[in-house]
């Protein structure tokens, strides 16, 4: 079975592909910017890092917009970080338009007045290990304890219009959507490929997922 990791030139996808290879030794993981390979793959992973406007531009430069949008509707699809954010209509980051697969926007943490329970200033980017409150039962949460910690590094978060697609929430300090699920699609704000056992379990669940 082929798992395609969509490569649109925005940074290092080695971590993602290595983690997938680790949990799916019997599968072929291809890091690719070839639309045909993405169309032919049985599963698609859509990662992303950096700034969303750059990600969208690079995606378009490589002619990958259409094949990614089609994949979101057709086969097991996992979005990671900016790969989650790009699925929505618009981001506050550079006013960028997203792919518009789902209704909703991407907002920045309101830096100035964020404090934790001890009154310490909360930093942006939100960087480190935070707890995920699972908002629904889902095959991708299988064997992952509710409130397990995953590794985050981001300054923006998604606000889906449809609350029914929220699969997980994390607090910083207010709850934000950290995972969404819809039919064959699952997408997360954290980095499963950097989240030790919990992250590897999520990737393993994705590899075996039959939506």
């Amino acid at each position, binding site marked *: 079975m082929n798992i395609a990791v969509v490569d649109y030139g925005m940074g290092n996808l*080695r*971590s993602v592909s290595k983690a997938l290879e680790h949990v799916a030794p019997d599968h072929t993981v291809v890091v690719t910017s070839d639309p045909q390979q993405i169309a032919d793959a049985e599963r698609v992973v859509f990662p992303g890092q950096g700034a969303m406007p750059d990600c969208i531009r690079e995606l378009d430069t490589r002619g990958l917009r259409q094949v990614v949008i089609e994949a979101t509707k057709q086969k097991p699809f996992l979005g990671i970080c900016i790969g989650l954010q790009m699925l929505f209509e618009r981001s506050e980051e550079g006013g960028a338009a997203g792919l518009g697969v789902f209704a909703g926007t991407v907002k920045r943490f309101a830096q100035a007045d964020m404090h934790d329970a001890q009154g310490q200033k909360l930093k942006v*980017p939100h*960087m*480190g290990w935070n707890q995920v409150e699972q908002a629904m039962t889902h095959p991708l949460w299988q064997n992952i304890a509710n409130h397990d*910690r995953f590794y985050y590094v981001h300054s923006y978060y998604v606000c889906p219009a449809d609350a029914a697609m929220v699969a997980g929430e994390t607090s*910083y300090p207010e709850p934000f959507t950290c995972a969404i699920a819809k039919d064959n699609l699952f997408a997360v704000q954290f980095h499963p490929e950097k989240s030790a056992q919990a992250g590897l379990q999520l990737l393993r669940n994705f590899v075996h997922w039959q939506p």
Partner: protein
Amino acid sequence: MGLAKRIIPCLDVTDGRVVKGVNFLELRDAGDPVEIAQRYNDQGADELTFLDITASSDNRDLILHIIEEVASQVFIPLTVGGGVRQVEDVRRLLNAGADKVSINTTAVLNPKMVEDAAGRFGSQCIVVAIDAKKVDNQPFEWEVFTHGGRKPTGLDAVKWAQHMVSLGAGELLVTSMDRDGTKIGFNNPLNRAISDAVDVPLIASGGVGNLQHLVEGVTLGGADAVLAASIFHYGEYTVQQAKAYMYQHGIEVR
């Protein structure tokens, strides 16, 4: 429930080997990099930092193999620092599997490099390392030093930190040169001053001798993460013990 404070063991690398010093002089092979990284991972380390202390630039690429090996088997964030001079160095380290690259002396010599690297790869992977020392010959309290603490720069560490963040640093690694190797604790006033002056996370480094120092790094110094080398390498404490101690003292840990 919230973001955990991170504990980051720091590993020294020279000529492609992970080493540890004996009496601060003789460097001894510390063992297989993947095994060491795996051990810290199993103990619950939140990240790992590799510091390249290779003297000769000829051998500096050897760290790439270590990072490649570790990154294919240990799935937590990896930071690499030491000898990072050009945007191209950042690219190669990221491609080898580093998640973040730490820039120290070059940030002072060529601040534009920080801006270029952050612009190209994103702030999330650019850590600026600041070595600071308390001084009494300047109109400010802490001065930035380079070249392993040997060269004064005339820069105010707090203002410098703010400048680096404005150029795109996504995180700061602050080492107190007064405290490094002393085991008397972090320089918490320095860390607090910088942490309060910037919005990005701060990693405290230099001076850890016991677990209470880690707690104080967070509570007094305002650090978002604490970095330590010797207390973990010589088996004085495990990362697990450090976390248990921090947790008992009201600090959120993973």
